[in-house]
Structures are given as C-alpha cells and as structure tokens.
C-alpha cells in the first residue's frame, strides 16, 4: 500500500465529460482512476476534509464553471493603478504548498478543481472588452504556470491576450521548469514572479521552485519577450528577514538588468481572520502563522511599526534599483 500519486484520482463532473479540455487533461493521465460526479461541490465541498492530507497528493476535479466567471479585484490585491481590475478563476487550488497561502484558509479541500469551459471565460472577457479595457489576473487561485503541463491554460490565456488589444493579463507564478514554448509572446501578458529569499522559499514555499530557479525562469521569460514583474508579496517576516532580503537583492543585481523589469510589487502579509484561524488550526507549528499579527477590520497584518519598517526597508531596496513609478505597494502609503 502506498499514498496515491498526485492526480492519480480524477473526478469529472458529468457536464464536463466529453469536452475538449477534459479529454486533453485525461489523456495526460492514462493511468488515473476516473470517477464521474454530478457536481464538483459533491467532492470539493465535503465536510471535515483534511486539507493537508489531500494536498500531499491531490486529486483533480474537472468541472464546468457556472455563475459569475470574472470578478472585481479584491481591495487586498494590488491593482497596479489599473482602473478595470478583475480576476478570473480557471483553477482552484495550487500544486505548490506555501505555508502562508490563503487558499488553505479559503478552501475546505486540498484537491484541485480545473474548470474546463475556458471558452466561456474568454467569452465573458470579450463581453467586457466591448465596454472597456480590462486588466485581468488569471493566476489568482492557483499557480497557472505550475499547472501548465496539466492544463495548457497559461498558453491559452497568452494566446487570447495577444488577440485582444484592450486586454492586459497578469500570470502570477513562482515559476515551473522551463517556459512552455506554446506561450504566445505578447506585451499584454505580464509574467509576475514572486520572489522570496532562498532561506524563506525553502522554509515556507514547499514544492515551489527554489529562488535561483525562479530567477532563471524570469530571465527566460524576458528573453522570450514577455514583460516581467517582480513580486515581493508577501514580504516574509522571520528572524533574519532583513539580511536575507538584502542578500536576495544582491543576487538579483548579479543576474538581472533592473531597467528591463516592467514593475515591482511590494506587499506585506495580510490575511482574513477566518482564513488565519483555520490555517493556524491546520498548522499550529508554523512560525510564520504563529507570528503575533494584529487583526484590524477582519484582516490580520503585521503590527503597524513592523509593517512600516518592512515596507520602508524593501521599497528602499527597490528604489535603489528602479524608478519610483515602477514600484507598487499593495496599499499606497
């Protein structure tokens, strides 16, 4: 007996059966046990699931997304001063396992849901584009690049962005292997790499590529012609955070040309109190979650003095390297 492998069990909503995306995904897992369900909620929203046990080797759930497909950007997310800021969910949950990931607080299940009606999402975006330009985050509830070998959705989105002039998309990622050659290069697809100091990545961002690998990935993306955004969000606070961020920027100095970076996002830790409570219950030994954050208006964040110190310190590291207007704080201070 062994623990199952990731995606060795695939649940397929009856309505998702026979669709092009479903067939494509299933063909990548010929040995998977495929189980038909009526509605993905029957599996994804069961009571008392163990996120951590499931997430060790998640099942895949293929479903059809109904209802609102595009959502207005949340106030705790960086809008980069874009007026029409939206996000779209084509996958729920992530194959990576970051200690601080809010998805662990949001979802009951550690399994991953892939919505196979991507064309409906595209249609909804096109409807919006008929009215105004759109800035859309498409890797919001997942890491789309990490799921590329399973879904091919990052490529599909980059093709779609290339075809639509008034659309700007952001694919936020911690990187994955090599950039897929199927990604259509366009200035309207921003590849946004989340970077953390090597020590923090190792300690808090399990299964995600190491920091050096992410830097290699972003260089590859730049070389291919994609605009690249650097995200220090959240800046992780732990005993040696200051020295470690300084080292990270020194490493970047040696590897990247700061001029060629499109922009930089800096954000401090923030998490809804409901999510925090659930995550602390799931992982009571995490130092990062045990940090004595303060709760204001339903959100946990660093104590004001530390938050200010972190923002000032990291923005100074950025300001020493790029122009002020390229630096975005999730909350303009």
């Amino acid at each position, binding site marked *: *007996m*062994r*623990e*199952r492998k990731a995606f*060795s*069990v695939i*649940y397929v909503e*009856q309505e998702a059966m026979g669709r092009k995306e479903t067939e494509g995904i299933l063909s990548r897992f010929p040995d998977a*046990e*495929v*189980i*038909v*369900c*009526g509605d993905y909620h*029957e*599996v994804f929203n*069961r*009571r*008392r*699931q*163990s996120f*951590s*046990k*499931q997430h*060790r*080797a998640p*099942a895949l759930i293929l479903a059809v997304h109904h209802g609102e497909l595009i959502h207005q950007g949340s106030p705790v997310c960086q809008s980069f001063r874009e007026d029409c800021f939206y996000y779209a969910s084509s996958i729920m949950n992530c194959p990576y396992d970051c200690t601080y990931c809010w998805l662990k607080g949001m979802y009951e299940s550690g399994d991953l849901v892939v919505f196979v009606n991507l064309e409906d999402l595209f249609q909804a975006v096109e409807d919006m584009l008929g009215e105004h330009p759109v800035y859309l985050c498409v890797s919001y509830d997942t890491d789309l690049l990490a799921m590329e070998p399973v879904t091919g959705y990052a490529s599909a989105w980059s093709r779609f962005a290339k075809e639509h002039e008034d659309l700007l998309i952001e694919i936020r990622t911690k990187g994955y292997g090599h950039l897929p050659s199927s990604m259509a290069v366009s200035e309207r697809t921003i590849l946004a790499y989340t970077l953390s100091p090597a020590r923090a990545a190792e300690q808090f961002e399990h299964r995600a590529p190491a920091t050096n690998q992410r830097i290699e990935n972003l260089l590859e993306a730049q070389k291919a012609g994609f605009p690249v955004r650097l995200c220090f969000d959240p800046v992780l606070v*732990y*005993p040696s955070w200051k020295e470690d961020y300084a080292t990270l920027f020194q490493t970047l100095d040696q590897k990247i040309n700061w001029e060629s970076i499109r922009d930089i996002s800096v954000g401090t830790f923030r998490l809804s109190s409901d999510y925090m409570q659930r995550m602390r219950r799931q*992982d*009571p*030994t*995490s*130092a990062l979650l*045990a*940090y*004595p954050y303060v709760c204001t208006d339903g959100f946990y964040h660093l*104590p004001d003095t*530390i938050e200010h110190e972190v923002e000032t310190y990291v923005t100074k590291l950025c300001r020493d390297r790029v122009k002020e207007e390229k630096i975005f704080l999730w909350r303009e201070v």
Partner: protein
Amino acid sequence: MLYLFSALYQEAAPLIDTLKLKKTDTARGIDSFASEDGSVLLTLTGTGNYNAIAAVSALFAVREAKRDDQVIFYGSAALVRGSAFLYRVREIHDSATGRRAFPDLLLTLPLPDAAAITLPRVMRTRTMVRTFAAHEEIGESVPLLADMESYGVYEAAARHVGPDQITILRFTSDAGEKISGRQMQSVSEQYAPGALEVIREICSVGEDQKEVKLSDEDEALLSRFSGWIHASVSMNTELSRLVNYANLSAISWQPIAEEYLALPCRSRVQGKKILEEFRERILHA
C-alpha cells in the same frame, strides 16, 4: 481508535474472532465488541440504511470521534457488474434519494475499487442491472455492487469524521438472492484475512499530528512572568502567543524574561509597558 462496522454478526464474525473482540456496552440498542486495550470497537448496525444511520449516530453520540480515528465498514454486497472479490467502495449512490457520497481515496490499496448502489431492499441482479443501466454517471468500466447500508454509514459517519477517515470494504456474497447466515459467514471468512491486512495498513497511516507543547520549565517561567506583570486575561493571551512564536522561531525568550524578573514590577500598568517591551524585543530578535 479504529471503529469497525458491519451490518450482521455473520459478516463481522471473522473480524471479531481474529481481533479477539469481546462484547461491550456502548450505546443502548446497539451491539458492540471491543479489543482488550480498547483501541478497536466493532459495532453491528443491522441491515438497511435507516438501521445503519441509527447505529453509527448512536455510537458517535457517546464516543467522541477524533481526527486520527478510522471508520471502516466491512460487509457483503451483491455483485451487479464485475467479478467476485473484496472491494474498496470509491463512490456510493443512494438509490432512494439519488445522492452520492465520495470517501477520500488517499491510499493505493491492494484491492480493486468499485461503485456501490445502496438499495432500500433486496433485489435480484437482473432487476438491478435494468434499474441501474440508467445510472449513466457510474463509469461503465467500474465494478458495480449493490448493498443496503453504505450510504447510511457514510452519511452518518461524515457528521463526525472526515472523508479521509472513512473506508467502505465490501465483499461480494451473492447476486441479489437471499443467502443463509452460515453461507454469509463462510464467504466473509474467505475475505477477512485480506480485509484485515488492508485495515491494518489504513490504520498505520496516521494524521500529521502537529502539536505545540511547552516544556515544564518554560511553562513555569511563563507563569512566573505572567504573575509578575500582573497579567490580565488578554495580556496572558498575548504573552502566550509571543512565547509560542518565539519557540517556533528558535528565539530565546527565556533570558529576556529572566532579565525582567530581576526587576520590580508593581502594577498592571507597569506590567503592560514591560509586556510591550518584551514584545518588541521578541519581534526584533
């Protein structure tokens, strides 16, 4: 703790024998058998969904289920499609309500998986095949069983434990016709060794037990410090949180606390200031 359930004594008999379970009192109206060390409890539910729901609920009303407990049902089923075998049930379809249940399949077991349809009464295979041909949501290639309790057991247990803690094991005993108790026991005996092997393996995979505990010395120091700063309930909560964070981050908070304890602290107001300082020192360590 392992909670075993079977509908009938004849199904459970080989498990009761092998695990040396003895009759015990649990809840009124249900028959249970326990191991000597109390770590295994087998309960007979009786046949049918309603009996299964009643028995599982009655048991968990008097026994609080924990996160590392396992609930395993072992019993017979009629074979609708596939070959005679011992199966793990991967999906349960309740014929009365049309509802479905999906236990987690976190382990690869040395058993095939099957779909089960829970029926309100005994049916012959031919009738079942006719009735369930319409169940297009059940994949055609999966073995199909019919039973009378799986859905009830799952639903009642799922109010107390997670889907990762529920396993339904079903051996095929017949094709929908009634069989005698003696015949049932003999088929169960045939499959019980395999089932027990699987049960042992399921139980060997524990929950990620993550617990934070202070050492006795740290506990004593914390309590001295708390008394010394005249801590209120909220100050105590904050103090514990800081100490917990410090321990998990390998920050030595003890010398800092000892340092303060050497000084006088006359009031809670002063204690509050000291707590603030203590906090700053931990957060900047």
